[in-house]
């Protein structure tokens, strides 16, 4: 006997609810409060679990895998409420919430829902991303993001593939899209990694790309370090290397600074 209409409605509703809960739930590696380097002011940073890239210098390598025993799944509604605890400090410091990772764009629907809710509460929102995602993901988050912290590591597609397992062109294309949408909402962040992108040609290539894209883009050089990275080749760069990189990049994008 076929199920009754009531049963069908009930099952469909349950399926729909479960799907929506899953769609708007985030896999969170950890939440860290009082972050001072993930955007302006005092911020609470949500480190999302899972990243399509596997950069060997990553100091959050535990967040690269799609799942982890320490990760938790939490609905955007509940997480928004939890994050608001430090709102009194954001208000005075110009801070807010930063989504980082992991890769936020890998959980685009849930992140967009979270950012929308935070926006409705007047919270400043940053997304820290490599851009390694479908254009759709960027489009989903863009209306709800006040500042993009956009990683740019190299202009060498082969080196990118070898060092990160990622394809360069989609990341560049997503960046172009965001710049076209509103360049004022973007801050480029370039990890300066020993033996990867410290050579002059690599830096010149990044500088040329950004200069042609928009010379007014602010660029932060993030000196590589080996904290939280017991294994692998050393990533730490010298002060001289940072200053040399800053000098080269400033010729193309004047608003370049080293984040010591």
């Amino acid at each position, binding site marked *: 006997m076929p199920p009754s209409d009531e049963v069908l409605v009930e099952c469909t509703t349950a399926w729909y609810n479960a799907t929506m809960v899953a769609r708007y739930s985030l896999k969170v590696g950890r939440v*860290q*409060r*009082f972050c*001072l380097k993930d955007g302006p002011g005092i911020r609470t940073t949500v480190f999302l679990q899972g990243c399509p890239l596997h950069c060997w210098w990553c100091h959050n390598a535990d967040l690269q895998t799609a799942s982890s025993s320490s990760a938790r799944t939490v609905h955007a509604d509940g997480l928004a409420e939890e994050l608001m*605890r*430090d709102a009194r400090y954001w*208000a*005075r*410091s110009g801070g807010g919430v930063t989504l980082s990772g992991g890769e936020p764009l890998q959980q685009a629907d849930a992140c967009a829902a979270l950012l929308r809710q935070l926006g409705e509460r007047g919270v400043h929102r940053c997304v820290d991303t490599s851009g390694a995602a479908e254009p759709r993901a960027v489009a989903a988050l863009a209306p709800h993001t006040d500042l993009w912290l956009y990683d740019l590591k190299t202009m060498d597609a082969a080196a990118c593939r070898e060092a990160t397992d990622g394809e360069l062109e989609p990341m560049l294309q997503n960046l172009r899209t965001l710049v076209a949408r509103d360049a004022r909402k973007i801050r480029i962040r370039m990890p300066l990694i020993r033996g990867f992108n410290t050579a002059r040609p690599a830096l010149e290539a990044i500088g040329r790309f950004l200069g042609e894209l928009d010379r007014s883009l602010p660029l932060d050089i993030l000196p590589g370090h080996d904290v*939280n990275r017991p294994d692998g080749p050393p990533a730490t760069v010298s002060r001289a290397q940072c200053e040399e990189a800053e000098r080269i990049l400033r010729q193309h994008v004047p608003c370049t600074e080293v984040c010591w």
Partner: protein
Amino acid sequence: MRQVIENIQDRLFSAEDSVCLDRARLVTEAYRQHTDEPTPIRRALAFRHVLTHMTLDLTSNPVFAGNTSSRPRAWMLIPECGMNVADQIAIENDTLVGFLDDKIPDDLAAYWESSPFRVEQGSGGGLAHFSIDFQYLVQHGLAGVIARIDRAQEGGSERQRTYRSAMRLGCEAVIAWAERYASAAEDAARSASDPIVAACHRRVAEACRRVPREPARSLFEGLQAILLLHLATTLEGQGWSISIGLPDRALAQFAPEVAADPDGAADLVGAFLLGVAANSFQGSGSKSQPVTIGGADAHGADQSNAVTRAFLEAFARVPVNDPHLFVRWHPALDDGVWSEALSMLSAGRSMPLLINDHTVAPGLIEAGVAPEDAWDYCVIGCNELGIPGRAVQCGNSSGTGQDDLAVLDNAMRRMAGKARCVDDILAAYEADVEAIGVRGVERRRTHTDKLADDLPFAFCSACFPDCIEAGDDLLRATRYPDIYGFFIRGTTNAVNALAAVEQEIFGQNDGTLVEFFERLDARDPDLLERIASAPKWGTDDDAADALGVALNAARHRALRRAAARFGLPPFAVCHVVRSLHHLDGRRIGHTADGRAAGAPVADSIGADAGTASEGPTAVLNSVLKLNAARWFTGIYNLNLTLPRSQADPALLRCLADAFFADGGQELQIAVLDAAMLREAQKSPERFRDLVVRIAGLNARFVELSALEQQEVIRRAESCESVARR
């Protein structure tokens, strides 16, 4: 001038602890000589004898006159209150353990051992915990006080008239003491080879011919008057926790003079601070001589002025650990004052400590202080509150208190076979607190009378106008003698203990409290690991914080009932620590928060050591859930340790403004660098100026005991570790 100040500082910081028997011998001589006089007169004569014959030291600090012993850091003893190294001092400066052994002559020790007038105070430090009315004294001088005494003498009983006579004797003795300095300074000026030093002596001589008898006419005379009066109260027999009050209000009339030469004024204030720092009671041990500046009046008007800024600048220049500085915050605090305060903290100065007028003043009003007086409050000890010339809050005489962890542990163990939920434990705790409060009032009432009768302080009392009118001692006759201090510690551990049993027993209905304590006392590693994962106070965890709120509310209810039984206003609950967290810890066995027997309890109302896992904002958020204005009318102390990387002044401003705007009461910001502290341990000679904040005091790091140094380093490492994540 700057070189003169540096020389003063060098002499002070390089002085070794020693003993000066001047005061002890002179007091004893006078006590022996005046056996037939009533006690207030006898003590006043003893005070005069000390001031008349003690050694004057104009060499160590030629800028200002005033000393309590023949050389800096030579301990001035108060045999009437006992002659011993206080337990706290011994913890903080372990080189002082046994320091007084064999240094007290047998005849002195024997006289006071059997004297009926000896009132043992444990710390050997008198009563203190007050500020005299410096504002009145700077503006009217002791001549004004004497005139008040004379007017009051026209009436009253014989007993009152006797007490007022003792007051007058004390005031005259201080005036004569200043004259002695004037003559000595004139001699010193004639023989000084350095013209700058000679000029300093001449200025001292001129000032001491006038103040503190007459009103001060300049910043220098005002500071000179305050220093002499402050040290005179010490010499009368008040050892530690004597406050300088609100000097920027007392000296506000000289703000235009300061504004015309802020640099010179800061130098003068710096030399003044070194004069206070050289107060020799307890030698190199911190005496807690707080200075409070800033703040609003009852109408919300900012009271800071050029003198406020001179004090800040002086504290920034002169690395004294004692006196310690408090800034009263309010929304309209002068931005320059606030910026300078935050810059000092950011630079790792560990001062000023910050207090919120908008929580403290309503709290005092709740405790029975009139609104027109409440906004004149200042810090009078480590962090206890008083009102200059009006309110005393004396742990040595009027206070009672408890370690919350000890009381809760006792209640838990007693209830182990009966409690079905945390509320049952809290009910037992509440009953115990009420009983402690009642005993405290009863003990205080008899003890206060004994102190006021056997150990009167007529000169100090003369600096409290109400005492002159009443012809009685400050312990009985200040405007607010009924504010009873209630001093607590261990609250953080108590909350964590509740959270642990809630998780392990009541939340899961798993096992019994009896079994829990059996395993706890056996240090079962599995249980300890689970306790470590229980919610913790100071992490903004709703479950733990709800228990914190419940515990503090229970204490408040209990104490209100205890006070009401005697028709008293509510106790002024003060979370005061200093190094008592070590002493308490040594007396308390294994506790449900996982703390091992003998380990120290928390050093503030914030997170326990190593548990601030969610960072500083979470600590502040947890504490903000307390109703400070009602539950801590004597204020809490909150120690927030930050690494240098997180201590930009703008950032500190955001934290402090947000915390205070939402009802935070007191905030101590310690900016530490673990690597530097370790370096200071290895090469103390290079870090002589490094001042750090411990639980309730400031100290020069290199002079701290190894135990306290390690505690500070662990705190620094812990916050750096959280910041690095």
